[in-house]
């Protein structure tokens, strides 16, 4: 009998990289986040072998949920083959042995930066969104402690003022991505820098959405079947990006979120941003149900309203 036979085999890293204490902490924070929809739960946030600001928040959530039976999809800007998505996918699978997919509907965990896929996600699926800045009030107060107090008091007057000023100046809301939204009638969240096109997909979604900012050490959740409304005045409805008439150069599809590709002659071409969806159409010409139909109508009828330009 040798000592080496008795000793545990050397293991350089824990399963799914995070040690048990870190995983336990994260899982508890996630449960709290689900219990208080939209509330930013502070967490310790471990350093990972990926640069901070490159998805370490989403990655910590994914690593604390993933198991060998998981099927993971990772996208960045909608694309599976983006270099950053590829890098995160490689890390998750190396550390966990999980399987990967590019099919939205096959994934048990879908980690994404800046997009929610076009196909309607299902019950039991988890969407993990990487968040650079979890604080929707950052624009009105840069100080996290003060913003925390404003959330506690549901003191969102400055956010409404911001929208009002936009209407006075521009006669429309000019917020691009990360459109501030009210969750479960209580907390305003930043839905992460997803385009406005994707924001409504959080409303009464069948899947669970976890949003996590590793650098800022905050995570929050939109549980399944929770109300999520973008901030809007009753008489000036929120608008998604207007891409009417944009046709995907590869699939011929319209009324899905497109990448605009500038051409040398000054014109633009368009392609589907959701590469997994594009692949599916190319392979089988079929897909699951989508949040927006071929006419561009959102699946919750009446949720999105036609534009109103307020009078001068």
């Amino acid at each position: 009998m040798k000592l080496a036979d008795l000793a545990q085999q050397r293991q350089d890293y824990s399963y799914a990289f995070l040690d048990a204490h870190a995983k336990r902490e994260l899982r508890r924070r996630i449960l709290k986040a689900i219990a208080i929809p939209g509330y930013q739960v502070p967490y310790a946030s471990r350093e990972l072998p990926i640069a901070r600001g490159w998805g370490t928040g989403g990655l910590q959530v994914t690593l604390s949920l993933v198991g060998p039976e998981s099927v993971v999809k990772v996208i960045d800007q909608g694309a599976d083959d983006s270099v950053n998505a590829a890098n995160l996918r490689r890390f998750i699978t190396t550390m966990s042995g999980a399987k990967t997919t590019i099919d939205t509907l096959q994934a048990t965990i879908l980690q994404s930066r800046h997009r929610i896929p076009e196909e309607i996600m299902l019950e039991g699926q988890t969407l993990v969104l990487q968040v650079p800045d979890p604080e929707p009030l950052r624009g009105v107060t840069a100080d996290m402690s003060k913003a925390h107090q404003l959330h506690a008091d549901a003191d969102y007057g400055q956010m409404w003022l911001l929208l009002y000023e936009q209407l006075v100046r521009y006669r429309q809301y000019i917020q691009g991505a990360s459109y501030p939204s009210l969750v479960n009638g209580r907390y305003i969240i930043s839905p992460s820098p997803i385009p406005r096109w994707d924001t409504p997909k959080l409303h009464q979604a069948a899947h669970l959405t976890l949003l996590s900012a590793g650098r800022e050490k905050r995570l929050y959740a939109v549980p399944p079947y929770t109300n999520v409304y973008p901030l809007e005045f009753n008489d000036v409805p929120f608008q998604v990006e207007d891409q009417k008439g944009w046709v995907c150069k590869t699939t011929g599809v319209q009324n899905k979120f497109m990448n605009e590709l500038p051409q040398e002659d000054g014109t633009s071409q368009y392609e589907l941003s959701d590469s997994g969806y594009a692949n599916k159409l190319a392979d089988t010409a079929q897909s699951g149900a989508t949040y927006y139909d071929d006419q561009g109508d959102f699946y919750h009828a009446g949720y999105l309203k036609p534009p109103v330009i307020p009078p001068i």
Partner: protein
Amino acid sequence: MYVAARGGEDAIQHAEQFYQAMLGKLTPEAIQLIQKQLPFLLDKVIGEGSLYSPELAALALAQTGGDVYEAVLLLRAYRSTQPRLAYAEPVTAGEVLTVRRISAAFKDIPGGQVLGPTLDYSHRLLRLDVLDGIREDDAPPAPQAENPAPPTYPVVADWQRSQGLLPALDADQTEPAAVPDVTTDVVLFPAPRAHRLQALARADTGGVLALGYASMRGYGLIHPTVNELRLGYAEVGLRHPVTGEVFSAGRVRVSQAEVISSGGDDGKSSFQLGFAATLGWNEVKLIAASTLDMEMNNREPHPAHEEEFVMYHTEPVESSGFCIHFKLPHYVTFASSMDSVRKVISTFYTNDTPPPQSNHENMQQVQP
């Protein structure tokens, strides 16, 4: 369905191979050389990485080609998964094996001013003769002292406390394992003092210097006087699990600074201290950090010297990581902004009155 997204994976693998080829081969000898010849660079990485291992710090520097932020990230990512086997006893300044210890507040101090190894009073001239192959050991060594210097020195602030110039210190009885830990706790503000001092110990040298310098130059409320600056070796005291005796598990390079200023914020006519300490020897960081520590204690410091501001913005891994993340594609968010700009333009301008050339200016100035 399993489909590998090969395009991206091939690209990142090739890019890393290219980088490794550029760096050349890593050898144990090269790493030992870094460890021996670049102690101050090593100490910077050790302090910011908050992991005392000169060997791993040298490896991290070699592996990243000397990119300090990347080296710090490597150490931090390694450290974050290591188990806590034991908690060391507190290090007290009076017991540190001190090689350098100076005070700017007094001409002489109990134990004396000890210059130790420093470049402070050297002429910053490039030693071009080294390039000609003249070896370093050709230069005569410093003469041997007649009496060896004592290994430990009293603490300057203790003298000031005995004079009633500084408030008495409450001895903190917290068990080492129970001290708040900025790496595993949730950080909220106002932060426990332990969090603040740990954050400063791990802080980016350049970041702390920028904010500290702003304070010193005039945005701060105080003029710091270096009460004591100390470089030395601390014993890592562990308690034996059976006997309960404290024994030394080894020595680590440590440094600490205390700056002093009149007018404590408690309204009494006494002095106040700012403190900072770190693993490794890093004088500029500690003088700046201890100044910031004192500044943060004051009521209503300059916004750039508030605790939350300082702690968030001097974090090397977070600040550098976020800065370089702007290299990542942002075309979806940019498309969303373009949509907003186009809608504004189409609302306010027709073919007869085209918009001005600069879209950005335009967004600020349009009048309905």
